[in-house]
């Protein structure tokens, strides 16, 4: 039997999904479009950002929205030296858990910074809005140091 060739082929598995958001996610995205950030009150009173639809502890449906600030504090972060193609930046940046003012639960988003030294736990950051907001999580383009 002759040796077969090894056959490689690049392919893309892709689709643009059309997601319906439901009222909670929809409200958050609607507010983002208006350059405003809202959280939701959990059953124990904690303010969760972005808002969750159901309380993790009691499984209750949540509905009490609360405005939160556009600035906050870095709780933890990862410095990405070699951004991947899917990442929001093509130069080094950080993913961070950010506790917004008025929130009790950190949200995960990206932080733009010139170097790793410019990011630290406890640092204050503020939301930077995309030029055009469309009602998508990336309406917050990134956070940057205050």
């Amino acid at each position: 039997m002759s040796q077969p060739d090894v056959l490689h082929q690049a392919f893309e598995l892709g689709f643009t999904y059309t997601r319906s958001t439901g009222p909670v996610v929809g409200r958050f995205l609607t507010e983002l479009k208006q350059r405003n950030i809202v959280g939701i009150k959990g059953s124990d009173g904690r303010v969760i950002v972005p808002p969750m639809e159901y309380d993790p502890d009691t499984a209750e449906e949540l509905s009490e929205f609360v405005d939160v600030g556009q600035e906050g504090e870095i709780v933890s972060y990862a410095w990405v030296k070699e951004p991947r193609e899917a990442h929001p930046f093509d130069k080094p940046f950080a993913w961070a858990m950010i506790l917004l003012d008025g929130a009790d639960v950190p949200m995960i988003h990206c932080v733009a910074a010139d170097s790793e030294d410019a990011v630290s736990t406890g640092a204050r950051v503020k939301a930077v809005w995309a030029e055009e907001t469309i009602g998508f999580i990336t309406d917050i383009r990134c956070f940057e140091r205050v």
Partner: protein
Amino acid sequence: MKEIAIVGYQQSDAVSDAGACNEVELIIPVISKVYDQVGIKNAQDVDFVCSGSCDYLQGAAFAFVMGVDALGAVPPIKESHVEMDAAWALYESMLKIRMGHADSALIYGFGKSSPGELPIVLSQQLDPYYLAPQWVDTISLAAMQARLMLDKGLISEQDMAEVVSRSRRNALNNPHAQLAGDVSVQDVLAQETYVSPLRKADICPVSDGASAMVICTVEKAKEWGLPYAVISGIDHCIETHNPGMRDLTDSVSTRKAAENAGVHNGAVDVAELYAPFSHQEIILARALGLGDATSVNPSGGVLAGNLMMASGLSRIGEVFNRIVSGEAQRGVAHATSGPCLQHNLVTVIEQAKEAA
């Protein structure tokens, strides 16, 4: 409740690229070995078959359907599949045996992660409105978890490097390992960070491969005349999907599963933990209450090779191997799923009473 025995376990080498190898070609060599080990001809000789796999690893729907072509399922067999690590296929199989609908089961897991960009592929496990559209990769999530621990003084970089060093050295005795070597703590710490605070060495490699196991009732194991170990406890538990709502420095679900599985009912000689990142091994060892008397990841663990969808089953297999060889009398195996140890399964495996 029926006692369930493990009588066979085999795995492929963990390789960075299995190359020209489809699902069937990945599975057949491994299940053939486990048939030989147990002395059966094929899947017809067990009462139930259950597998674990994930379509997105190589981007083709219905990977497990092709897997059935490896089984010789003519005449038809009792068979099922979880889109999870095969450790959960083991769990499902145990329920089948306990309810009396099977005396024996073949379990296998397989994955070819090399064709895709795994940390990005797995970002699509996150919630589809807030996190998945940002493409937050699994390594970055784990890096944030590690930093929380470092910042709180719960671990040091030295501790993490010690995990890596031990894994690489232990893997020298594991013929299936992808990464093995005499790597010192200093060697690891000398590496630059990659996704800070993680170094490349803190992160499990991307591997292709498969593993397989046969379990049965203790009566059946005796009938087959095979050395066996007994699963004395098993439980699993999931946590909220919002990483911000979890205490990422602990694994409360592992703690709870360990309690329910009876980890603390005896000494733990050996533990195999599914920790894809070095700091997670420390979280898990603490959640399981393991002390110095326990040999942790003697196989090298998944830092030495991570067979996605099979690694959890492999942890159980590794503990089984050490018990039937007499190296250990009682051990704990752990499997995980989801970002930052969201979902955890704990199994306690013990020497058969006759052997004790």
